Every structure is written in structure tokens, then in C-alpha cells.
């Protein structure tokens, strides 16, 4: 009898141990995946935050630029920089033949003319002098310098020629190649050239989309939730609405994209590819998430609080606005943030409403065409150039950073409210 009991006890303990072991290994697995994922992203992405520059002497010769010795600002704007830009590249190898000159030109980004122009406009006294100027290297050389480029491939399979590599190595030896923080990754819009591509357009696009989404979804969802939870009679009709809100939350996001395409673009003729349309589409997706979160946190407010307020002579409206809603706010806000985070990472509906178009301008308002961060990741991941590989990871890092900041923000708000209310 006693023995049996002991056996049973031992069994119970061992089953608990087994369970704990399984639980711990599950957590371990999850952490392992996470660590692997983060390691992969960081190790491929961190180089995107650096950019390679060639330091090239440029002769700002007034004559070549068709300028007189004392040009006005407009003259500087209109001057011809092409010749001097080309010449400064050709000067890297005085003996280059025509084909080699062409290769020399391709060692820098096609922006080099503009970079040289900017330099002179910033400092007009350079006119007639020669100065070393930082010029963005081509994306292939950028990758070579970062060590991401397989130099040992046969020349035919490389986009960098042997000649270019030779000149580049010479420059490196002379200390004329420098790696600096890649500010343009954050300030430039997308580009076909990897060395010039930045996330400014998609970042602003995401911000605008999220703001539009928040501005629409939050008030509508909170009002709907408060009405349904605190005021609406409980009958078949409201049950029906509740079921359908839950259904809405389960609808695949691409369906909302089709809705945006069919209604916002086709019927209301809103401007295509804009964060306005993207935000409205995303708000349809976020709406049920916020409604459900808000209703759940309203339900969690103890009825005794409502009774206390009502018994003090507060009207239903006052009870709701003074007590129930403030108490439910932390939950509502965290639900909102979760909904927005989902919306932030959403790609499919935005592709459908045209936010996948190539946009090389930075949007100044929700009405301007833009991409969004996840769509940018998608666009770059599709590109063949090596220079975009690191950009994909870097963009993912920015997106994750964005999400972390949002969550932090939610935590802070939550914390503040909770301190106040309990």
C-alpha cells in the first residue's frame, strides 16, 4: 500500500520533470532560431551602413565649364560639369585608351557629376583650382572594398573588369579609397543603382501610412468598441456584428488590398501608390484588431467600478468616460500598437494598391507616391545586384528597429497609465 503510494509519487515528480524539460527545450529552440535570424541579418546587413568613396582630384577649370571668372549663383547652377567630371576620372590613368576610359567612368556612381557640382556650389572659391573630392564608388567596387565580391571569378563572369580592379587597387594603395558612414542610405530615396539607393522614400511612406492608419482606425475602433461594449443592447443583431468583427480579423490581408484597389482607387479615384490609400487599406485590417483589444480591456474593468460610479449618480456616459475607458486604455493602446505593428509589416495589400512602384522621390505628404519598408525589402530582394543584398538586411534592421521603438513607446504609455490607475 505504502509502496504503491511512493511509486505514484515518483511518477508524478518525473512527469513534472519531463514537462519542465520539454518546456525549457521549446524555449531554447525558439531563442536559437531568433539568435540565428538576428545573427544572419546583422552579419549581412551591417556593411550597408558603410559606403565606399574614391578620392579623386578634380580640376574646376572655368573655361571647360563655360564660366567667366566671377560667376553668379545661377551661372554655377547652369554650368557644364560633365567635362570636368569626366576629365577627372580619365586623369586617374593618363594612358587609358577609349575602352579603358569608359571603364574608368563606370568606377563611380553616375551621381559623380552632381557630387562635383555640389562641391563647387558650396565653395565657389574652388573655381580655377584643383581639389580632392569624395565621389561615391560604384556599387560593385563598394562590394569589392567590403570584401563581399568574389575577385577570383573569371573576368567574363564579373561586372568589374581586371582593368578597373587594377586602378582600384592602386587607389587603395595610395589611400584614395575611404569607407565612411552611409548617410545616404537614410536620406536618399530608392534608386536603380545600389550605391545610391536609400530608404528615405519607403521610411517616410511607412510613417505616413501608419499615421493615416492610426488616424482612421483608432477613433473608429475605440468608438465602435465602447458603443458595443457599454451601450448597445445585447441582442441577435449585435451578436451578428460581433461575430463578423471576429471574422474580419481573420480575413487575409491581400483581400483588403483588393478592396483598396477596387473601391479606393477605382471608385473614389484616390491617387495610386500613395500612403493615403495604403493607410486607409491598412486601417481596414487594423480596425478589428483594435476593436477586439478595446472590448476585451473594457470587459476586464471590474463591474464594481461601474456600479460605484452609477451609484454616485454618474450618467452612463460619465461612468464610461470617467472610469471605464481610462481603465481600459492601457489594454487598448497595446492592442493598437500590436495592430499597427502588423500593419507596418504588411506587404501584400500595399503591393496591390501600387505602393510597389519604383519611387525615386521622397514623399512630403500622404498624397505623394511612396513605397513602404516591407515593400522596399521585397523590391530589393528581387534585384539581382550584389549591392542590394546587404541593403535588404539593413532595411530589415531598420524595420525591426522601428517595431522595437513602437513597442517601447507602448510600454512607456502603459507604464504611465498603470502607475496612475492603481
Amino acid at each position, binding site marked *: 500500500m505504502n509502496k504503491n503510494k511512493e511509486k505514484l509519487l515518483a511518477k508524478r515528480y518525473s512527469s513534472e520533470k519531463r514537462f519542465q524539460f520539454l518546456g525549457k527545450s521549446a524555449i531554447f529552440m525558439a531563442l536559437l532560431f531568433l539568435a540565428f535570424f538576428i545573427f544572419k541579418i546583422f552579419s549581412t546587413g551591417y556593411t550597408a551602413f558603410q559606403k565606399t568613396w574614391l578620392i579623386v582630384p578634380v580640376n574646376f577649370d572655368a573655361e571647360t565649364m563655360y564660366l567667366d571668372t566671377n560667376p553668379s549663383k545661377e551661372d554655377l547652377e547652369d554650368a557644364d560639369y560633365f567635362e570636368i567630371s569626366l576629365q577627372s576620372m580619365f586623369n586617374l590613368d593618363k594612358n587609358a585608351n577609349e575602352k579603358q576610359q569608359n571603364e574608368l567612368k563606370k568606377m563611380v556612381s553616375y551621381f559623380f557629376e552632381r557630387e562635383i557640382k555640389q562641391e563647387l556650389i558650396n565653395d565657389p572659391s574652388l573655381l580655377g583650382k584643383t581639389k580632392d573630392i569624395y565621389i561615391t564608388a560604384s556599387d560593385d567596387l563598394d562590394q569589392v572594398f567590403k570584401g563581399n565580391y568574389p575577385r577570383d571569378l573569371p573576368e567574363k563572369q564579373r561586372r568589374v573588369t581586371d582593368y578597373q580592379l587594377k586602378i582600384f587597387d592602386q587607389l587603395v594603395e595610395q589611400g584614395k579609397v575611404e569607407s565612411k558612414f552611409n548617410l545616404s542610405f537614410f536620406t536618399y530615396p530608392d534608386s536603380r543603382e545600389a550605391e545610391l539607393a536609400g530608404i528615405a522614400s519607403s521610411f517616410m511612406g511607412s510613417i505616413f501610412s501608419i499615421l493615416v492608419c492610426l488616424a482612421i482606425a483608432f477613433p473608429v475602433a475605440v468608438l465602435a468598441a465602447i458603443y458595443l461594449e457599454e451601450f448597445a*443592447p*445585447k441582442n441577435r443583431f449585435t451578436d451578428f456584428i460581433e461575430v463578423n468583427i471576429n471574422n474580419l480579423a481573420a480575413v487575409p490581408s491581400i483581400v483588403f488590398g483588393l478592396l483598396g484597389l477596387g473601391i479606393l482607387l477605382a471608385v473614389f479615384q484616390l491617387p495610386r501608390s500613395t500612403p493615403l490609400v495604403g493607410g486607409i487599406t491598412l486601417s481596414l485590417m487594423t480596425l478589428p484588431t483594435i476593436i477586439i483589444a478595446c472590448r476585451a480591456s473594457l470587459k476586464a474593468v*471590474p463591474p*464594481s*467600478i*461601474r*456600479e*460605484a*460610479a*452609477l*451609484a*454616485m*449618480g*454618474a*450618467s452612463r456616459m*460619465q461612468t464610461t468616460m*470617467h*472610469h471605464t475607458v481610462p*481603465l481600459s486604455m492601457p489594454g487598448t493602446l497595446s492592442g493598437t500598437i500590436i495592430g499597427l505593428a502588423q500593419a507596418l509589416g504588411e506587404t501584400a495589400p500595399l503591393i496591390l494598391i501600387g505602393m510597389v512602384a519604383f519611387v525615386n522621390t521622397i514623399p512630403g505628404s500622404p498624397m505623394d507616391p511612396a513605397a513602404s519598408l516591407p515593400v522596399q525589402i521585397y523590391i530589393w530582394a528581387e534585384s539581382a545586384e550584389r549591392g542590394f543584398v546587404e541593403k535588404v538586411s539593413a532595411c530589415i534592421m531598420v524595420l525591426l528597429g522601428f517595431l522595437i521603438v513602437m513597442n517601447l513607446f507602448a510600454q512607456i504609455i502603459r507604464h504611465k497609465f498603470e502607475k496612475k*490607475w*492603481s
Partner: protein
Amino acid sequence: MKKNGVNMIKISAKNVDVFYGKKQALFNINLEIEENQVTALIGPSGCGKSTFLRCLNRMNDVIDICNVQGEIVINDFNINDKGCDVVRLREKIGMVFQKPNPFPKTLYENISYGPTIHGMAQSKQEMDEIVETSLKKAALWEEVKDRLHEPGTGLSGGQQQRLCIARAISVQPEVILMDEPCSALDPIATAQIEELIDELKKEHTIIIVTHSMAQAARVSQNTGFFHLGELIEHGSTDKIFKNPENNKTQDYITGRFG
């Protein structure tokens, strides 16, 4: 207040029936409550004491399926009339619940809430005064005067219940309804509240639901005994406890059932 040696009637319930959906919870209740007296409602669990109490400030309105019929006249006015404004009614009829339920706000905000929504204070000073007198009347002032701006949920159970009483009297109600106000409290806190009730009856009419015969005997002047949704017997506490007319009352009071 007495008129010709008889207490004035503050509330009179006439033929009150209450239904929860199809189920009838109260049957034809006729009860008169005397002004500035403590009336205790006793009876076994589920007999409808809380239901009756909640009729008096129309708290049953909150429950969708609840349907109250009959007349409840307070100050010559039937509160079940369509024209009755529940907000005004609840300003006049305060309530204290079984479980202390302070707002999760500061002590000060707890007390000032009622006067604020009813526009009873013109200035911060007036509000401060209301808060102080309410807390003093609820015998809580000395304990909390230094932490008025701390959360009310940080008090002990007994203190919380006195806070709820202070909150209820902050709007100077004519009647205070108490639903088992001491059931979550220890004997010392209970004694404090009972003392308080005795004090409060000078200015307010009090109706208290209780499961403790001893408590009913200690604090009340009148008692009503409920059983299975019916008011079996009511009268002065002395008479009900010493010399009840009905056998059921006798059995309940002597602890034979319930």
C-alpha cells in the same frame, strides 16, 4: 424627525414585484422606511434583499433582464415613474456595496468625484472642505489626512469600506443603502462601521442588508425579514427579535434555518 411622537416615513414601497427575465424574485413587497432610522433587511441567501435594496436607487436598471413593477415613493414621488431622473435620484440615495469598491484613483479624487459631477463645489476650497468633512464623518480623516493624494486602493479593507461610505456621504444623500457592508471585514473594522452607522443616522436614513442577526439587533431600529422573495414580517427590531409574529421569522432568528 418625529411628528406627534411617530417617525416620518421616508420611503414607502407599494406592491413591488421584481422579475429577472421570467423568474420572479420579489413578490408584492409593501414596506415603509422611517426617516433617520436604521432599517435592517434580513433573510436567508437568495431571498431578494439585495434586489429590493437595488430597487430603491434604480440600480436594477443596469441589469437588462430585470423588470421592476409597483410603486416606490420617496418624498411623495414615485421613482418608478417614467419622468424620474435616475441621476438626481442617485444623488439623493447613496449606496455602499458589499465589497469595498473605491475608484482606482487617489483618496481625494474618490471623495470629490460625486460633488464634481453634481456641481456641488464652486472652488477648490469648498471641495477641500467637502472632502475633509466627508472623511471626518466616515471616521477616516485622522488615518488618511496625510496621504489624500495616494491611491485609494492602497488602504486596508476596512479603511476602503469607510472610504466608500465617505464617498457616498460626500453628496449629502438623504438615504444611504448598504448591502452587507461588513461582510468583507474583520470584527474590529466591523465595530468601527457599526459605530459609524449609528452616527450617520442623525443626518441620513439608512437601510442595511445584513446576514448577522447580532448586527441587525445592534444597529437597527426597524427590521424587515425576507424569505423566498416575500417580505414575511417587518416592524421594530425589538419586536422582531423578541416577539416575532411569524413562525418562519422565529425559526430564522433563532438559527433554525438560513
